[in-house]
């Protein structure tokens, strides 16, 4: 079939382009499954501990919303409940991003046009990217099955668990294959597929938490993995449901692909204004146009995060109070009441997530520069510092806004549950905003790299990963204080105890200011990237 000509070559091209990306994604999932599987048995090895968590799932709707309904009461089944939905979402996310990257993104950039002028059929780009991502998911399923069986989990259940992850990935890869036909821009194609993923997650959350509309979960692929019932009398026919729906989306994607023009989508982009509004006349206004979409998305995410963590806070004493091992782990992390420790702990995590946004916003500087979009601005009367600061504003004030939103929502939800809104919002906002200086150190580090080692700017992500690992594993592994002190997040004082001190915060702010200033100084002195 000539429409498929060149598929083999395109598969090799995709594997060559993703020779790091794909293995890193897969390795990440394998490490997560491996480490959580090996820790799981010890946490819930007695029937009492299991009964307590199952009771919680029954009474606390946040758990059902977040992780779904549990089937079976074995430790294995609880593992599948706890990790199936969350890992599944990320597998789906990986799959849809990679498919768009090799289809619509290539088409939008114009590179695919060059490729398509060769002996490459119309359907080859879509087919090859689907084959690559399907293959990656099959490899993942095999690896996960192997790991779980090796860790002592039951064989059939391990296969069902691995299959649930892979089938989510395969389905959303196909959905991305479809959205890539619909829109002209890759960003929009990703957003559409992401919205489908988010919507089906919410649909399942709704179905799983409300008795009356339980059937809703059956309309959501994110609920199907759980309904394969790993370790709880596997329902293999659910795999057929996955495959059937995948087939339907696939056929639609192929039909659209055959019918449409190269470069075109189904949804024509709307025209913009013929003139710029009066406000679009400063570098900051331009930065706002470029950064606002990202910021809106993150604000929505933080509302969601705050709601989830606020909801869980209410049940925290019941869950961990009855599990001495878990309580011991938490106790090592701070002082105060269990809920206060939990708040500080959660805010530490939320702050790390806000750092992801901050680094993203700061890295826009570099992507504007290498995309040769800084050049036209800097060739006008806009100075380098002014331009850099226009984006830096988002990297600095953005996380402040996010933490404020997250803290407020969390305090609101928990406050509503215990009838203390005014008090809880205050405490929760305080414990979220106190994290800001640590976030800013990372922002400053990203800017320092931008000024002096722009090619290595991705090292800002590496720093974040190191801080995450130190924060999450340090206390459990009982690392030395010297090692822990490397992370600015270690220095954030606990707001729960009585010994709150602002000194480390002043230090952290000082360090961030110095890093930012140095970064701007370096950027003023260096050459601008000129290669496209």
């Amino acid at each position: 079939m000539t429409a498929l000509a060149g598929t083999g070559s395109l598969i090799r091209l995709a594997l060559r382009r993703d020779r790091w990306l794909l293995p890193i994604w897969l390795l990440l999932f394998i490490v997560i499954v491996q480490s959580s599987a090996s820790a799981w048995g010890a946490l819930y090895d007695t029937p009492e501990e299991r009964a307590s968590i199952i009771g919680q799932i029954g009474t606390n709707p946040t758990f059902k919303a977040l992780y779904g309904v549990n089937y079976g009461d074995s430790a294995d089944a609880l593992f599948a409940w706890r990790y199936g939905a969350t890992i599944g979402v990320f597998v789906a996310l990986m799959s849809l991003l990679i498919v768009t990257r090799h289809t619509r993104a290539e088409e939008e950039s114009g590179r695919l046009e060059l490729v398509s002028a060769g002996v490459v059929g119309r359907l080859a780009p879509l087919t090859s990217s689907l084959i690559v991502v399907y293959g990656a998911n099959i490899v993942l399923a095999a690896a996960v099955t192997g790991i779980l069986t090796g860790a002592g989990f039951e064989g059939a259940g391990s296969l069902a668990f691995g299959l649930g992850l892979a089938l989510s990935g395969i389905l959303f890869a196909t959905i991305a294959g479809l959205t890539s036909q619909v829109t002209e821009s890759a960003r929009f194609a990703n957003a559409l597929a992401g919205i489908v993923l988010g919507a089906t997650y919410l649909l399942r959350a709704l179905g799983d938490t409300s008795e009356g509309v339980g059937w809703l979960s059956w309309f959501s692929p994110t609920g199907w993995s759980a309904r394969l019932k790993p370790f709880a009398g596997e329902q293999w026919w659910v795999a057929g449901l996955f495959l059937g729906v995948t087939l339907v989306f696939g056929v639609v994607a192929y039909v659209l692909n055959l019918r449409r023009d190269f470069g075109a989508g189904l949804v024509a982009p709307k025209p913009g204004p013929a003139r710029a509004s009066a406000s679009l006349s400063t570098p900051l206004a331009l930065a706002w146009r470029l950064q606002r979409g990202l910021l809106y998305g993150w604000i929505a995410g933080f509302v969601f995060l705050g709601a989830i963590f606020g909801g869980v806070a209410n049940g925290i004493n019941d869950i961990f109070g009855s599990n001495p091992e878990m309580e011991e782990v938490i106790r090592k992390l701070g002082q105060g009441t269990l809920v206060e420790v939990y708040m500080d702990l959660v805010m530490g995590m939320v702050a790390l997530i806000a750092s992801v946004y901050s680094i993203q916003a700061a890295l826009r500087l570099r992507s504007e520069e290498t995309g040769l979009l800084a050049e036209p601005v800097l060739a006008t009367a806009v100075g380098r510092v002014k331009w850099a600061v226009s984006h830096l504003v988002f990297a600095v004030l953005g996380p402040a806004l996010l933490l404020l939103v997250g803290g407020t929502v969390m305090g609101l939800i928990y406050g509503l549950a215990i009838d203390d809104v005014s008090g809880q919002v205050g405490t929760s906002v305080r414990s979220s905003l106190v994290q800001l200086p640590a976030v800013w150190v990372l922002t400053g580090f990203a800017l320092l790299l931008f000024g002096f080692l722009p090619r290595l700017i991705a090292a800002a992500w590496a720093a974040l990963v190191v801080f995450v690992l130190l924060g999450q594993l340090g206390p459990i592994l009982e690392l030395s204080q010297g090692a822990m002190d490397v992370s600015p997040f270690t220095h954030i004082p606990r707001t729960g105890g009585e010994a709150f001190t602002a000194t480390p915060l002043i230090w952290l702010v000082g360090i961030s200011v110095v890093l930012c200033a140095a970064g701007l100084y370096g950027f003023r002195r260096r050459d601008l990237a000129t290669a496209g």
Partner: protein
Amino acid sequence: MDTAISVSGVHKRFGRTHALDGLDLSVATGEVHGFLGPNGAGKSTTIRVLLGLLRADSGTATLLGGDPWRDATTLHRRLAYVSGDVTLWPGLSGGEIIDLLGRLRGGLNKKRRDELVERFELDPRKKARTYSKGNRQKVGLIAALASDVELLLLDEPTSGLDPLMEAIFQDCIKEESQSGRTVLLSSHILAEVESLCDRVSIIRNGKTVETGTLSELRHLTRTSIAAELASAPTGLESLSGVHDLAVDGNNVKFEVDTHELDAALKAVTSFGVRSLTSQPPTLEELFLRHYEDELNGGRTA
């Protein structure tokens, strides 16, 4: 101020690549100056040094009386730049980008902007993501030409434009020149250079190899002569400035350096001329001679 741009002995290295190797360039105020050279010769690097986007390793560069690196921001109010591959923010419309870039430069002439949008037949409502290469260039050109500036730095600005738009571009530059603006125009389109430029500089491997008016440059190259004579010619090979001499009976063909043309023709006519064709040097030949010959590395005129 007589000199708008003055560059002397500028060096710029990128790692092992010697992009600019002692480059000299002088552009008088009010002239349209052609900036020529093969791909990779250092034209864009020079313009980026002049814009203060790159810092010269050594040598001096003066732009509108200021230092392009130190005084970048103030100088940029007085100039406009169009690159050979205009990049635009995909989510903004062409009209928004034109206005934005103009305002960032310190204001743009609204009447002129509307006039240019019409002349270049640009649809300013389209999102930049959907523009073709030629339309992206138009956005960059309109943003630059609609500003009231003293100097235009144009780096292959018409790449991707169709011939009609190319003609409109040339008209615009002639108008700009008449109103006293200085233009530095890097281009590979020789017809464009010939019709617009007062003077040209040719650079190769980061060095200036030739500067002058087009007629001055023409003098540096050869005219080809083909003639049928009354008798077989002799002694032509000993004339200075004669190259590639081919004698076939009474027919003769050769090339001669333009400044030796007179002496060569006198020698030829002494054998009795029955027919004669003379081809003046074309610009193409002139440039090819400068662009080629990587081995010698020096001037070959």
